[in-house]
């Protein structure tokens, strides 16, 4: 074909360098979230002794930092998976109501005092996430593919409904339980020991492996559903696998950390601007950057109003709301 008069090469991104920097940032965030806090820590005593300082370091700060890094990574990679699957920058587990469904499942389990502890709440959250996904995606399927506007509207509708149902459950619970539900709904990472970290770790790894194994298919969706199918992507299977995987991971996550909004929206967008659109770089980028973002947000939540601790969900939502509006605004203008 004829040559275009201007033969400009695209701006080169250096994804390898960015990923290395994010890896370093992840370690720095782990160190910062472990060492800093509302209470100053005598590191020498913490490392050698087994007194109060050691308890703060090993039983409170470190597990909390690790949980924040994991939760942030899962949230960001789930957001990335939804955005890639639906080819829309506004799609993520929270805007599509999946997290709302998980929260409703978990709240019902908390209110009904379901036995089994974390596993009971986790299963309920997963079922809630799956039901919400099924409703939202089912509504927006058509023979021509997925209707994005219907998808987002269905997500809003499901979110509003789940919030109403959660309020309903709260209203009829006893005051103690209501307080527990309200506090949990704000999202938080206050844990003691490693139970929650160990619970979430396999789900996080599973999701990362699943998305990694489907990176070509998710990349192919950049060219549109029809072209991707023509290249050999089984769209129904891909949707089923990715939506199922994300619902599982989000269910497991919501069971320990409550609903923490907007990480899945902000982080993939930021990472994309740094490493480009290839899932090979986007996925590890999101796992790392999501963790860094949430660990630092949680550090902020612990220290901003010290000694009072803010729920981290409030901080991320405060950042995410304006970001969502900005995204909508720039898309409208674009």
């Amino acid at each position, binding site marked *: 074909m004829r*040559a*275009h008069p201007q033969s400009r090469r695209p701006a080169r991104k250096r994804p390898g360098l960015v990923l290395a920097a994010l890896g370093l940032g992840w370690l720095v965030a782990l160190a910062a979230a472990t060492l800093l806090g509302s209470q100053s820590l005598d590191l020498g005593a913490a490392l050698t002794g087994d007194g109060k300082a050691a308890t703060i370091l090993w039983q409170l700060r470190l597990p909390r930092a690790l949980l924040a890094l994991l939760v942030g990574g899962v949230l960001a990679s789930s957001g990335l998976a939804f955005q890639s699957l639906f080819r829309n920058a506004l799609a993520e587990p929270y805007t599509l109501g999946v997290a709302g469904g998980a929260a409703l499942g978990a709240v019902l389990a908390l209110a009904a005092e379901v036995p089994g502890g974390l596993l009971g709440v986790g299963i309920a959250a997963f079922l809630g996430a799956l039901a919400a996904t099924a409703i939202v995606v089912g509504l927006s399927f058509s023979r021509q593919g997925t209707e994005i506007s219907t998808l987002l509207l269905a997500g809003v509708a499901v979110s509003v409904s789940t919030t109403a149902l959660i309020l309903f459950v709260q209203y009829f619970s006893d005051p103690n339980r209501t307080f527990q539900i309200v506090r949990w709904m704000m999202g938080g990472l206050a844990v003691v020991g490693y139970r929650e970290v160990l619970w979430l770790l396999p789900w996080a790894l599973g999701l990362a492996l699943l998305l990694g*194994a489907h990176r070509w298919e998710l990349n192919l969706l*950049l060219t549109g559903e029809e*072209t991707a199918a*023509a*290249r*050999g992507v*089984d769209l129904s299977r891909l949707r089923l696998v990715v939506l199922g995987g994300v619902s599982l991971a989000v269910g497991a996550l919501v069971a320990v950390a409550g609903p923490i909004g907007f990480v899945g929206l902000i982080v993939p967008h930021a990472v994309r601007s740094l490493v480009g659109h290839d899932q090979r770089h986007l996925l590890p980028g999101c796992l790392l950057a999501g963790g860094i973002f949430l660990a630092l947000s949680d550090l902020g939540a612990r220290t901003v109003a010290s000694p009072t601790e803010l729920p981290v969900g409030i901080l991320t939502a405060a950042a995410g709301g304006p970001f969502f509006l900005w995204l909508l605004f720039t898309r409208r203008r674009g």
Partner: protein
Amino acid sequence: MSARGLTWHPGGKRVLGPLDLEVHAGECLALVGPNGAGKTTLLRLLAGLIEPTAGTLAFAGEPYRRFSRRAFAARVAYVPQIRPARVPLSVRELVLHGRYPHLAGPAAAPREADFEAVARALATTAIEHLADRPLDELSGGERQAAYIAAALAQETPVLVLDEPTTFLDAGHQREVCGLLTRLHGEAGQTVVLASHDLNFASAVADRVAALVCGTLAADGPPAEILTPERLAGLFGAPFEVVHGGARPVTLLRLAP
């Protein structure tokens, strides 16, 4: 490829068929017909992108449903007419995506053979100089060439194209025509395409099938199908047909 009693009546709406159609190895078949005749639907059915509501489709004697999506994409490539407005890829990346059905596994990395196939596809479509340009910066003609290159990188025996010359200027139309003629004539590629441009269909195809209201109205060599009488019946418009060279050239009389 062969279709028997092929029907597409989604939700009871009669869009296509039932019809029988054979596409022989090495031939170039052009589907023509008025808007809404079912050309794109027939192409999508042949490319295995939608499943017929009734009837059977077979590739080399094997029913379509025996193939996985990826295995089928190694046999039939499809270039759709409508594509997303923004695709944040370079031409080379787009063409490399065409190698997906040939990767060792769905998650395997491309190998040397894949990069060679990409280079061949870029050379065949003569767009090597555009390889590292972002797709979104290209003109319509260049973009069409890139999508055809991606389909060629699939290295399939059959290539299906929906309206390959729509929105292209005369020069690019001729280039696409030359490319398809070379692919079909020299490389023996089986090509099935739909086109509103009757001269394009006449120039590249050795067989023309006319669709009307979802059924086959006529099927044969261009000189037999592209006659003033048949075209008037198909489109309800007056045509003149000139037989200068080997293939007929149609002229639509637009002024009343």
